[in-house]
């Protein structure tokens, strides 16, 4: 059996591990246009911050490929899938035959058309280790940085570089930072924190035109900067599957075994859509745990096992200068709110289910809430009144606890 995996990040690694757990003999080939040993993609900001280094940010130990008998083709692009002939065509002209193929191609930066962008001499995306290494080369204490985009990636970049430059400006069309995970109040807490570290925000605003190192904002404000980071959003890499005739939406479409509409072609991670059980809709959940779950599921099925990934929910933990924002699920239904000092808790629930939560600087035992969401636990089976105040196993039945604490799980 020949397994071919396009990608060398979370979903790809998870799949390779799952394949090896079932099939010790089959050939595994991993193809990636990034030439590095697999690394934790979210760690690129921690690298700039000095909280990790090239060695420690390896997602798996140095002997990962050798130990698992994985052939690596790095620094080369998969250009095309020939689904009829079951081959992947590479940018160097080679054709790699597969019995089972996984597309774990992730996403790429979305760069909207911006007037005058070609006149900006020093500009970056912030998605890859190479992006971070290139950005690092130009960082210095007298530089001013403009980050376009106040989402997760833009603000992690901000945290990584704030101490290494003179000034960081952040512009975003949204009226608050981190709009995908925070409401207005939560966003204001984190914004204040970031401002204390020297960031300056231009919200409900955007760049109308670049002119070299000058940005003219819609509001009329003018910013002089030395370095531009574009972190507006990402687009799923669907083209390989799409061009081969496979079904795609905003992401590659798969069944709950992670197989695409093309036979023997699987897909996992940020390039796919997931069925979010909180909103009951298909959407892209570009989050690392989700990529891992999907990759592992795909790998098991590719190797002849039977796995289903059927409880996808958004969940995200993100930190800024010692503050921690933990969120999961979706924000609809009735709410329970607690504001104590600079901490903030908001729970969202309806129809006897917890739908989502926001926790700012109260991370302890958040996973108990997350499990209520992922398991769609009926809230009348637990003491939700006490859970609202404090996530604890005391709120569950003695029988549940016996299952979990007195048995093997």
């Amino acid at each position, binding site marked *: 059996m020949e397994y071919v995996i396009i990608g060398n990040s979370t979903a790809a690694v*998870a799949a390779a591990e799952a394949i090896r757990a079932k099939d010790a003999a089959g050939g595994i080939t991993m193809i990636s246009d990034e030439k590095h040993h697999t690394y*934790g*993609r*979210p*760690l690129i900001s*921690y690298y700039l911050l000095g*909280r*990790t280094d090239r060695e*420690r*940010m*390896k*997602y*798996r130990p140095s002997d990962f490929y050798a130990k698992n008998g994985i052939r690596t083709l790095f620094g080369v692009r998969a250009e095309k899938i020939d689904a009829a002939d079951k081959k992947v065509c590479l940018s160097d002209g080679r054709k790699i035959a597969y019995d089972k193929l996984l597309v774990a191609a992730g996403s790429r930066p979305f760069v909207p058309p911006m007037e005058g962008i070609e006149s900006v001499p020093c500009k970056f995306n912030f998605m890859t280790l190479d992006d971070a290494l290139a950005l690092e080369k130009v960082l210095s204490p007298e530089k001013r940085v403009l980050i376009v985009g106040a989402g997760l990636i833009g603000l992690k970049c901000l945290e990584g570089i704030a101490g290494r430059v003179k000034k960081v400006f952040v512009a975003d069309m949204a009226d608050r930072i981190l709009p995908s995970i925070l409401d207005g109040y939560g966003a204001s807490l984190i914004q204040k924190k970031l401002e204390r570290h020297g960031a300056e925000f231009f919200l409900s605003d955007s760049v109308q035109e670049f002119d070299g190192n000058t940005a003219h904002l819609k509001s009329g404000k003018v910013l002089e900067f030395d370095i531009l980071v574009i972190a507006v959003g990402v687009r799923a890499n669907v083209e390989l599957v799409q061009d081969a005739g496979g079904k795609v939406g905003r992401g590659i479409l798969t069944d709950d075994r992670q197989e695409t509409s093309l036979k023997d072609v699987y897909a996992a991670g940020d390039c796919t859509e997931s069925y979010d059980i909180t909103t009951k809709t298909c959407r892209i959940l570009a989050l*690392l*745990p989700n990529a*891992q*779950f999907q990759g*592992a599921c795909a790998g098991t099925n590719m190797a002849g096992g039977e796995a289903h990934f059927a409880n996808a929910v958004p*969940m*995200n*933990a*993100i*930190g800024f200068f*010692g503050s*921690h924002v*933990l969120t*999961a699920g979706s924000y609809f239904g009735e709410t329970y709110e607690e504001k104590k000092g600079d901490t903030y808790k908001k729970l969202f629930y309806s129809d006897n289910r917890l739908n989502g939560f926001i926790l700012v600087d109260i*991370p*302890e*035992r*958040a*996973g*108990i809430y*997350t*499990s209520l969401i992922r398991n769609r636990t009926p809230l009348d089976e637990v003491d939700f009144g006490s859970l609202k105040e404090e*996530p*604890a*196993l*005391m709120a569950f039945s*003695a029988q549940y*606890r*016996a299952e*979990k*604490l*007195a*048995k*093997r*799980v």
Partner: protein
Amino acid sequence: MKRIYVNEKWCLGCHLCEYECAFANSGLTDMVKALKGKAIRPNIRVEDGNGVHFAVNCRHCSDPICVHSCIAGALSAEDGTVKIDGEKCVGCFTCVLVCPYGAILPSADGRIAQKCMLCLNNSCGEPNCVKHCINNAIVYEERG
């Protein structure tokens, strides 16, 4: 594979396991030096309420969601033990976000996560909480 199990009915709520855990992981040999006057941050936590007490620590799950979710590759499962590599951990707390038992905690300085490693990582060599539980409310054994 031996794991830690909780006998809820026998737990007196004495919290001794918390102190023994903190001591075992302090790296010190003198209990007074290790614990006296200090806010302890054990990997095992006793919940108390309405006459019910029980200790909670890492279940070393056979399908560990914390390991799967770690963005840094800092958590791993080896020979049935879920381990954290504090050198690799960047303190994002995704593991705290996903553990259904609330058994992974931010460390005292908040820079990394901490969890029970069955005392295999310290000089005890076997779970110190179990060793000192006065009523066998926590045990270390094979179960189905």
